[in-house]
């Protein structure tokens, strides 16, 4: 059995090479399509990964028990989900490790990993190692190294996920044969996982080819677009935006309200986080080498983005994701590019971008008391409406104590206006 080893300087429990062989690595769910692919890719690389698909009220309760209650809701949920799984998931508690992302930005989210460790200690589980998944070189572990190859594969997983999510959301509300869209998503997910676990499908050329085929398949779905539906965009803090656990199954709710939903993809967030480093250097000065490396990575992601967009934009019936540079240009005179903590200016930009591409009804999701959202979310709504008077935005707070009825009631108000606008638009046509 693997010995527990600690970092000499900080005393942090390390994830060792031996553990990599013996341990199960648990990670919390966020965006299902993406994460399922990502999980399988990591498994193939020799990590015994387990994506947690648990839900239910026990998760939040566990979180509340072990994390400071005023901490943001995503921390309570992700940490709750991890600890709950260790406690009740039937794993050998001496052969399980946890993995959590760390962005290294100036918001509280960078501290989740520390809060998780504190929680584990409180729960008497301090022997469980925690691995940080980040691009900033924080917290190294002998048993877990993020290689260039892994980063490329992860980017590929994000791209495929974004593509499937984007197409699914635009087809499912109009499908003629119930469940067909979801079946198509599953089919492709399997196919991609199969490709990638065989070391294929993550080169630009392969991606381009695969993405084209995916778009073709969705194009060939039998759809009925005769009824115009209310189009709703979802933006917000990244976890509550994507995770059903965090937003009380918002996508499902909107679907039941007969809406078409648009969730801007994860690639935009990845680009934003890389771009931040470049902006920092531009604003305050900094090393040329760092700039060179970031620019390289940025360029690569932009190429990948191009591949994604061109695969979808071939079909007129689909709204392809906007180019990062375009989305960015929308906030030029609205909010500074130095606003980088959390979702930063990207959140504002996504709202403007959605409104511009026909999704002017927007749910801006945020954890109660989310600091960056005071600025880039609620703080910018006034300006957004000034720029695009059609924008119909509702900001919704999510929290362990915020009841679903209230949230849905406020969203329904937004939808009432959306429906009225839709009727007016129909008359105009």
């Amino acid at each position, binding site marked *: 059995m693997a010995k527990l080893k600690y970092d000499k300087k900080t005393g942090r429990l390390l994830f060792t090479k031996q553990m990599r062989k013996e341990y199960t690595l648990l990670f919390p769910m966020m965006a299902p399509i993406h994460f399922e692919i990502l999980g399988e890719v990591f498994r193939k690389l020799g990590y015994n990964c387990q994506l947690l698909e648990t839900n239910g009220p026990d998760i939040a309760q566990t979180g509340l028990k072990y994390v400071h209650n005023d901490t943001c809701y995503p921390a309570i949920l992700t940490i709750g989900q991890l600890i709950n799984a260790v406690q009740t998931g039937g794993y050998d508690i001496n052969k399980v490790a946890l993995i959590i992302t760390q962005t290294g930005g100036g918001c*509280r989210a960078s501290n989740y990993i520390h809060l998780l460790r504190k929680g584990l200690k409180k729960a008497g589980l301090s022997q469980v190692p925690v691995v940080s998944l980040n691009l900033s070189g924080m917290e190294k572990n002998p048993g877990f190294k993020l290689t260039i190859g892994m980063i490329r594969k992860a980017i590929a997983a994000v791209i495929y996920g974004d593509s499937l999510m984007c197409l699914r959301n635009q087809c499912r509300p109009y499908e003629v044969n119930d469940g067909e869209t979801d079946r198509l998503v599953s089919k492709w997910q399997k196919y991609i996982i199969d490709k990638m676990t065989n070391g294929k499908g993550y080169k630009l050329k392969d991606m381009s080819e695969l993405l084209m085929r995916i778009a073709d398949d969705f194009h060939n779905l039998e759809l009925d677009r005769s009824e115009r539906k209310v189009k709703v965009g979802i933006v917000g803090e990244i976890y509550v935006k994507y995770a059903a656990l965090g937003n009380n199954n918002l996508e499902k709710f909107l679907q039941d309200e007969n809406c078409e939903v648009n969730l801007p993809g994860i690639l935009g967030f990845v680009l934003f986080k890389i771009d931040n480093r470049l902006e920092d250097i531009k604003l305050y000065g900094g090393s040329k080498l760092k700039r060179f490396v970031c620019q390289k990575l940025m360029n690569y992601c932009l190429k990948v983005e191009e591949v994604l967009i061109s695969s979808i934009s071939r079909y007129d019936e689909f709204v392809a994701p906007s180019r990062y540079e375009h989305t960015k240009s929308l906030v030029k005179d609205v909010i500074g590019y130095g606003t980088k903590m959390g979702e930063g200016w990207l959140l504002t930009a996504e709202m403007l971008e959605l409104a511009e591409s026909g999704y002017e009804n927007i749910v801006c999701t945020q954890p109660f008391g989310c600091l960056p959202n005071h600025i880039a979310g609620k703080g910018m709504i006034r300006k957004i409406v000034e720029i695009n008077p059609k924008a119909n935005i509702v900001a919704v707070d999510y929290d362990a104590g915020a009841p679903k009825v209230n949230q849905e009631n406020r969203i329904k108000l937004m939808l009432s206006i959306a429906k009225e606008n839709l009727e007016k638009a129909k008359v105009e046509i």
Partner: protein
Amino acid sequence: MEELRVGLDIGSTTIKCVVIDSDNRVLFQSYERHLSKISEKIEEVLNRLKKGILKDYDSVKISLSGSAGMGIAESCGFPFVQEVYATRIAANLLNPDTDVIIELGGEDAKILFLNNGVEVRMNGSCAGGTGAFIDQMASLLNVSIAEMNELAKSHEKIYTIASRCGVFAKTDIQPLLNQGARKSDISASIFYAVVNQTIAGLAQGREIKGNILYLGGPLTFISELRTAFDDVLKTNGICPENSLYYVSLGAALASDKLIDLDLLLERVKNYSHTGNFAFRPPLFTNEEDYRLFNERHNKEMVVTLPFEDYDGPCFLGIDAGSTTLKCVVMDEKGNIRFSRYMSNSGNPVPLVKNILEEIYSLKPNIKFKSSAVTGYGEDIIKNAFKVDFGIVETIAHFLAAQKFMPNVEFVIDIGGQDIKCFKIHNGTIDNIFLNEACSSGCGSFLQTFASALGYDIETFSKLGLFAKRPVNLGSRCTVFMNSAVKQAQKDGASIEDISAGLSLSVVKNALYKVIRASSPDELGKNIVVQGGTFLNDAVLRAFEIEMGVNVVRPNISGLMGAYGAALYAQAMCELNKESSSIISEKELKEFTHEIQVTKCAICENHCRLTINKFNDGRRFIGGNRCERPITKKTGSNELNIYEYKLRLLQSYNDSSKGKLGEIGIPMGLNMYELLPFWTVLFNNLDIKVTYSSLSSRKLYLYGQATIPSDTVCFPAKLMHGHVRDLISKGIKKIFYPCMSYNIDEKKGDNHYNCPVVAYYPEVINNNIKDLKTENIEFIKFYVGIHRRKDFPQKFYESIKNYFPSLTLKDVKIAAKRAYQAYENYFRKIQIKSDEIILKAREEGKQIFVLAGRPYHLDPEINHGIDKMISSFNVAIISEDVLAHKVKKKITVHVLNQWTYHSRLYSAAFYIKDQKDMNLIQLVSFGCGVDAITTDEVRDILERYNKIYTQIKIDEITNLGAVKIRIRSLLSALERKENANGKIEVR
């Protein structure tokens, strides 16, 4: 047959029904309370319609609206119209020239802007400033809503009351009552608080002007509330006929689907709930269980003996709590001879007077040997009735608990509005937890809830004892619980399940929000519970279940404070004197009490003073933060670094003539500490600097309508007032830069500002309209003072757009001086703090590190807490000066990445071996970052056996709770020193 349409509006407390004809004329309307029995009430209303106006109809066009109507509409197949939307439909028809609608309901507050782009606003997750809030306040004042309205008409003064949530307001109002403020002034103040809450929370930068319509229950029934709105908005709004029925009218107007009435009734009748809600095991599975439980708890007895049989010396204990008044007369052996427990309708003085009269009439020759008073009303009661001793509540409760369990390790008291608990270690109180403003009110919440559901508290809580499936309502602020309960009802939870669920929640709140315990082991095995709320068997049982241990509930649980005070009186008089100074029977007959209200003019805190005058010419002043209005002394602020820093910053006079022009700097957030930096920088560039005025309530209100996020911290909210203040001063260029990073003090892993400090200029830029209309140049570019070498170049590139004649050379020289000025500032405050420490040590004074953020210097933010603490004859320093004494990076268990917060950790670390230093952390409500720092600072301190104290601050100005904390801390420190646990004479 005429085509009729029906609209039903099911709000949080009432159900409204309207029937209209095809010409939109109202044929029928009804308004009644539903007491949360929603489906029954709908059935009743529908049946009434069916027998009456709809008797010839089989089907009718009908729709449902209202916050509580959504669930039932969905499952019974009613068309649903969102209520704000419904209001709009009705207003468009009835008042087409309306610009803005303000509608207050039971738990909702809404503003609708109808012209220039329709916008609708609804309160988010907070029910502050709504009908429920006003109801709560009325019950606190012990008057009806109508009486409250009448009272408000004769008001003379308006007090500042936080209306964000009822819990906050209570902490503001209670001390006012205790200090003897007039109910009429308080009533009016409550209405103004509602107005401010509505504007701050919902206007979000949009001006409320034009034709205004007032709708909903509170605005219909309370004329003074409308007056308050008119006054604040400088307008004349109208409250139209049918103002209660706009939502139901809108729903009726929107009805376009014919629905079969019988079918509908059938569905409502069979409205089978999903039954799908999270629940917990029952509190008691059977009667036997409950019997055993009672048997166990009836054992712990303090004996109550007949009063008339006893002629020996007596000890009087009074606990003038926030919502109840308790009084005990104890004999020499610790038996209770007389006791009273009554609800406190506000002013405790007449109540105590009545009790004393009763005692004297029962026992004319009573020999009071000593007396003591504790609780919120301590000061006024002590003065009014010449009580011998005053004692802080925590100590009173500890003394009483020891009587029941000499080896007690943990005492928890849940009272009307507070939770107090503390750990006992080696016979001294070692850790105190008081509920922070956001989760208090637990006991009174149960009460309010019971009456909202049409029960008295006792019946209501008993309902929960044998509930089969207690709802899992979580551990949250009571305001949120209100809506959680609605959700549970929608999901089919019975009243029994809800009652039990609420009891469980009260307990969880205490455990996980206040104490922040994760397991019973942390609190020890020997627990005494007390306070009125634990008289409730359901709560007590819930506590035992949650903790997994059996606890002791003294049979005088509700009287513990008073009993503790009596014990204290006894202990003190043994060491002290022969007979009590308490008011005699004769004096009591002549006793009168008069109240005057005035504003203290001595310093910028402008405390509202209540001057209590008694018949014998004695006076008592309440509401003061410091001793100055009483002693008339200038007060020695020599040992208070907060005073020094504020004065030092004010001394950075502008020395420039401003050849190149003038800029304004808003004085808030990070600009506080950077004032020396920017002043010197700009002065050296020949640019004149003007600051915004010192913060005040008025300045805050001036900016509040432009605040987009009502949950952001108060210091950030204040910035809106500061920027508007600069504009009103005629400043044309305002400098408020964005700063992701702060200076790197090499104390942590990074040196960020928090997101709010970093980017608040972006919010200001997009939400203060005057910036555009007054053509202000708002300078908010990003600066990086952390990169000293790059700063001049980068700063130059940006600033030259506003001052084109500047050269890079100028900026380089100015920047150098600016950095020097910044360092000089720190040097100065460090020297001063060293002096303070030295002096305090010479004089043998305790040194308190009042730790927070640089902007906590602002008297409007710290509410004079520094002055209040220093009035206890202690020295005060701040975290920044100590942090600089710690040279190396310290190890913490969090990501140490914010400059201001790193200082907290370093300061906590520094005092670990400074015997006479203790740390008090100031935390702004809504500060997300402090959710991380508070736990870590506590951790560091407790590792080295130091007591951690936290004070949450917001708009609120009540210092009563803070005082308790400080006094408890001082007394705990005293006892720690003499660890044998005897009571010391003060």
